[in-house]
C-alpha cells in the first residue's frame, strides 16, 4: 500500500508559543523534517519538552529563564487534518488543559473544551489523553497488565503510551535503557502498546468493531445535538455568522467615524476657549495681588506684635525703675551692721551692696524719661501698623470680590462656549459605548454560532474517520497482521537505514517478537557496547517504526521527535561518555572527524519525508553538518547562538535581562 496518503493517524505540530510576561516566544513548524540547532543551554531541548508537555506529559523541565519569563504555553497542532490549540499552565501541572478547536489566532472566537491532565483528574469534557486518541481516531482500549495470564487485570491504554514511540529524548538516544528495557513492568506496558499500535492484539478486530460502533453513536448524538441547537437558533431568529460578521464590520466603521468626530470636537473646543485667555490672565493677576497683599499684612502683623512686646517691656521697666526710686526714698541710707544670727559673723551693708546695681534717683529719672520717649515712639509705630493692616484687609476684601466676579464671568463664558461641545461629545461617547457593547454581544453570538459550526465540522470529521475505520476493519478482517510480518517489516526498514548510513557490518538485523526491540549482528540492542552504534540503531528503530506506519495502517501518529541525534557520534556531552566504549566506537569508524554516518542519517530522514504532507519529524541537535547545511536550509526552523553571532537569537527566551 505504498502511496502518499498514509492510513495511520496524523499528528502535525504547527506552532508552539510560550506566552510570557514581557513578550511571547514562538516557533513555527511545518510538515516533513524540522531542525532546531544551536549552542548548548540555549533552550533547544526545552522546545521539545514544551511540546511533549502540551501533549499531556505529567512534568515539565522548566529552567530559570522559563520560570521568570513564561506564563502558559500554547500548542497549535493538526490532528487528522483538523486544527486545534492546546493551552496549558506551565507552573501548575495539575491544572485543567484547555483545547480550542481553532488556530492560535482565532482561539478568542470560540469557547474552549476543558480536559483533565491525567486519568486521576477529569475535566468538564473528559481526559486530555482521550481527547488526543479520539481526535486521531485511535480506539480507546484496555490492555492486559500481565499478558501471559488469562485473567490478567486490564489497564487503559493512554495516548502517552503511544507517544513513547514518538519521542526519543536526549537521555534515551543511544541509551541501553531504551524503552525501559531494564524495567520489567514498564517494558511489558510498552510491548502491549507496540502490539496495539500494530494491530497485533488478539482482540484487535473486536476492539475496532466496538470502537466503530462507539464513534457511530457519537456521530448520531452529535447530529441530533446539531439539529436541536440549529432549530433553537433558527426559532430564536439568531442571525447567521455572515450577518453577524457584516454587522460587526459596519459597527467598526461607524466607531472609526465617531472617533474622528470626537477628535474634531476636542480641537474646536480648544480653539474657542482661547478667546477667554485675557479674562483668565486677569484672574491670575488678581490671585497674585491677593497673595502679595496677604504677605504684606502678615509681615505687618509680625512687626506690630514685636513692637507690642517691646512696649510691654518698656512699661514694666518704667514701673520697676519708679519702684526702685520709691524704695530709695524710704530706705535708710545709714550704714548699718548686724551679726549673722546663725554664725555671728558681722554683716556689713557696704560690703554687700557693692555686689548689686543701684542707680541714683537722678539717673533713674533720666532713664525713665528716655524709656517713656521710646514707649511713645513704639506706641505710634504700633498704631501705624494697626492702621496699615486695616487698610490692607480692606484691599484684600475688594480684590477677593473682583476675583469672585472675574471667576464667575470666566466660568459663565466657558460654560457658554463649551456646553454645546460637551453635550455633543457626550452624545458621541454614548453612541460609541453602545456600539462597543453591540460588538461585544455580536462576538458572544458568534461564539455560539462557531460552536454549532464546530459540531458540524466534528460530524464531518467523524464521517471521514468512520470511513477510514471501515477500510481498516476490512483490511484487518481480510488479513490480520502477524507479529512475524510486522517485526520483519520494521527490521527490513532498520537494515535499510543502517546500510544507508554506512554502519559497519550490517548483518542479522531483526526485531524481537517478544520485546519488540531491535537486534543487530544477532546481538540485542542493549548488549551493543559502542554508544555510536546504539545511537544509529535507536534512531533507525524509531525512524523505521514511523516508516512502517506510513506504509501500513497502524495507530502510530506519523510523528517523531529526536533530541540530540548526534549523541555518541562526536556530539556527546561529557555526562554520557561513561555509557559508551570509545575504543569500540573507533573500531566502528565512529569519530568526530568522519561525519559520514551522521550526515547520512539526516539524508535518510530527509528522503523519508520528501513530498509527504502526512509526516512530521522534529530534530534537535547542536549543529548540522557543514557539508549539508545548504541542502537543509529550508528545514531549519530555529537556530540559536549563545553569543548572538550573525543576528541569531541567543536562545528560546531571547530577552533575558542582562543579555544585550
Amino acid at each position, binding site marked *: 500500500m505504498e502511496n502518499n496518503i498514509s492510513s495511520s493517524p496524523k499528528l502535525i505540530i504547527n506552532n508552539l508559543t510560550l506566552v510570557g510576561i514581557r513578550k511571547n516566544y514562538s516557533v513555527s513548524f511545518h510538515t516533513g523534517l524540522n531542525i532546531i540547532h544551536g549552542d548548548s543551554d540555549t533552550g533547544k531541548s526545552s522546545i521539545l519538552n514544551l511540546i511533549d508537555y502540551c501533549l499531556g506529559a505529567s512534568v515539565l523541565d522548566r529552567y530559570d529563564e522559563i520560570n521568570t519569563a513564561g506564563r502558559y504555553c500554547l500548542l497549535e497542532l493538526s490532528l487528522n487534518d483538523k486544527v486545534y490549540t492546546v493551552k496549558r499552565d506551565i507552573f501548575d501541572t495539575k491544572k485543567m488543559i484547555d483545547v480550542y478547536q481553532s488556530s492560535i489566532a482565532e482561539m478568542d472566537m470560540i469557547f474552549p473544551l476543558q480536559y483533565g491532565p491525567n486519568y486521576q483528574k477529569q475535566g468538564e469534557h473528559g481526559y486530555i489523553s482521550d481527547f488526543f486518541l479520539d481526535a486521531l481516531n485511535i480506539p480507546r482500549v484496555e490492555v492486559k497488565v500481565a499478558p501471559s495470564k488469562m485473567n490478567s487485570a486490564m489497564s487503559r491504554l493512554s495516548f502517552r503510551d503511544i507517544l513513547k514511540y514518538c519521542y526519543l529524548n536526549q537521555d534515551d538516544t543511544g541509551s541501553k535503557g531504551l524503552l525501559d528495557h531494564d524495567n520489567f513492568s514498564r517494558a511489558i506496558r510498552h510491548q502491549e502498546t507496540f502490539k496495539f499500535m500494530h494491530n497485533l492484539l488478539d482482540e484487535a478486530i473486536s476492539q475496532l468493531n466496538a470502537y466503530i460502533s462507539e464513534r457511530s453513536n457519537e456521530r448520531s448524538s452529535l447530529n441530533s445535538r446539531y439539529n436541536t441547537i440549529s432549530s433553537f437558533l433558527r426559532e430564536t431568529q439568531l442571525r447567521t455568522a455572515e450577518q453577524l460578521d457584516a454587522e460587526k464590520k459596519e459597527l467598526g466603521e461607524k466607531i472609526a467615524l465617531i472617533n474622528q468626530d470626537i477628535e474634531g470636537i476636542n480641537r474646536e473646543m480648544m480653539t474657542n476657549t482661547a478667546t477667554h485667555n485675557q479674562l483668565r490672565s486677569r484672574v491670575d493677576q488678581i490671585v497674585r495681588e491677593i497673595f502679595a497683599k496677604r504677605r504684606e499684612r502678615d509681615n505687618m502683623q509680625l512687626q506690630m506684635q514685636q513692637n507690642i512686646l517691646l512696649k*510691654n517691656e518698656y512699661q514694666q521697666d518704667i514701673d520697676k525703675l519708679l519702684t526702685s526710686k520709691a524704695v530709695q526714698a*524710704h*530706705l535708710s541710707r545709714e550704714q*548699718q551692721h548686724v551679726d549673722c*544670727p*546663725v554664725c555671728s559673723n558681722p554683716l556689713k551693708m557696704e560690703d*554687700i551692696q557693692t*555686689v*548689686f546695681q543701684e542707680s541714683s534717683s537722678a539717673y*533713674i529719672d533720666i532713664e525713665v524719661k528716655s524709656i517713656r520717649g521710646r514707649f511713645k515712639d513704639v506706641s505710634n509705630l504700633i498704631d501705624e501698623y494697626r492702621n496699615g493692616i486695616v487698610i490692607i484687609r480692606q484691599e484684600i476684601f475688594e480684590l477677593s470680590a473682583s476675583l469672585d466676579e472675574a471667576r464667575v464671568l470666566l466660568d459663565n463664558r466657558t460654560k457658554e462656549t463649551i456646553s454645546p461641545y460637551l453635550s455633543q461629545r457626550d452624545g458621541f461617547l454614548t453612541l460609541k459605548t453602545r456600539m462597543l457593547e453591540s460588538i461585544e454581544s455580536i462576538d458572544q453570538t458568534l461564539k455560539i454560532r462557531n460552536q454549532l459550526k464546530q459540531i458540524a465540522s466534528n460530524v464531518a470529521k467523524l464521517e471521514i474517520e468512520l470511513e477510514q475505520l471501515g477500510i481498516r476493519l476490512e483490511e484487518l478482517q481480510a488479513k490480520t497482521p502477524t507479529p512475524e510480518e510486522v517485526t520483519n517489516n520494521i527490521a527490513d526498514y532498520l537494515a535499510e537505514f543502517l546500510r544507508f548510513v554506512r554502519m559497519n557490518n550490517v548483518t542479522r538485523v531483526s526485531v524481537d517478537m517478544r520485546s519488540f526491540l531491535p537486534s543487530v549482528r544477532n546481538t540485542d540492542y542493549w548488549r551493543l557496547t559502542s554508544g555510536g552504534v546504539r545511537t544509529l540503531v535507536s534512531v533507525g528503530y524509531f525512524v523505521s517504526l514511523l516508516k512502517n506506519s506510513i506504509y501500513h495502517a497502524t495507530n502510530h501518529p506519523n510523528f517523531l521527535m529526536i533530541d540530540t541525534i548526534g549523541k555518541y557520534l562526536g556530539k556527546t556531552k561529557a555526562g554520557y561518555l561513561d555509557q559508551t566504549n570509545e575504543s569500540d566506537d573507533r573500531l566502528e569508524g565512529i569519530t568526530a572527524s568522519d561525519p559520514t554516518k551522521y550526515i547520512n542519517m539526516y539524508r535518510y530522514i530527509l528522503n523519508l519525508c520528501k513530498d509527504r504532507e502526512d509526516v512530521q519529524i522534529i530534530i534537535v541537535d547542536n549543529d548540522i553538518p557543514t557539508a549539508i547545511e545548504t541542502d537543509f536550509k529550508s528545514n531549519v526552523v530555529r537556530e540559536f547562538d549563545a553569543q548572538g553571532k550573525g543576528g541569531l537569537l541567543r536562545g528560546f527566551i531571547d530577552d533575558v535581562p542582562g543579555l544585550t
Partner: protein
Amino acid sequence: MSHIFIHPDTELNVQLIRVLSILDKMSFNRNNSPVLHLEKIAVFDFLLRHPGILFGLLKKTDKKVSFILEDFELNAIGSLYPSRDGLYQYEDHRKLLQLLLIHGFTNVRVTQTGELFYVITDQGRGFLDQIDSKFAFRQRELASGFAPIQSQTTKNLLAQIIPFINGK
C-alpha cells in the same frame, strides 16, 4: 554710683521688693510654720519674674489661680524667653536676704535639724506698705498666688517648672 546702662530687673531695690513680697505672703504656712528657705525663695523669685510660667504651672496642676494675668506679663520679651539660670542664683539671694537682715526686715528661724527659714518682720511688712508703686503692689498680689504650692519641695517645683522653660 553711675551706670551707663540700667537693667531694671537687676536693680537692687527692685530685687529687694520681690524678695520682700515673697517673705510677706509666704513666710508661714497654715500651721504658722516657716517654709521659706533659700532655694525656695530663689524658685519663687523666678516665678515672680515669669508670672506666665506660674500661671501655667498652677493651671496644669489644677490649682487655684488667685490672680488675672496681665497682657504685658505674658507678651513681653523677658516672659517669652526665660533663662533657666535664674532658678539657681542662690548667692544673689543670700546677699539680698543679708541686706534685709541688716535692715531688720527679715529674721532667721533655725529648726532642730539645722534648717534655716526666713520670715518677714513687722518692720519689713511696714516698709513694704510704704512703697506706693504699681510694681510693688503687683508683686505682692502675684506672691499671694504661691499659696497652693507653698509647701511643695523645691525639687518638685523645679521638676514642674523646667518643662515650661524647655518648651519655649
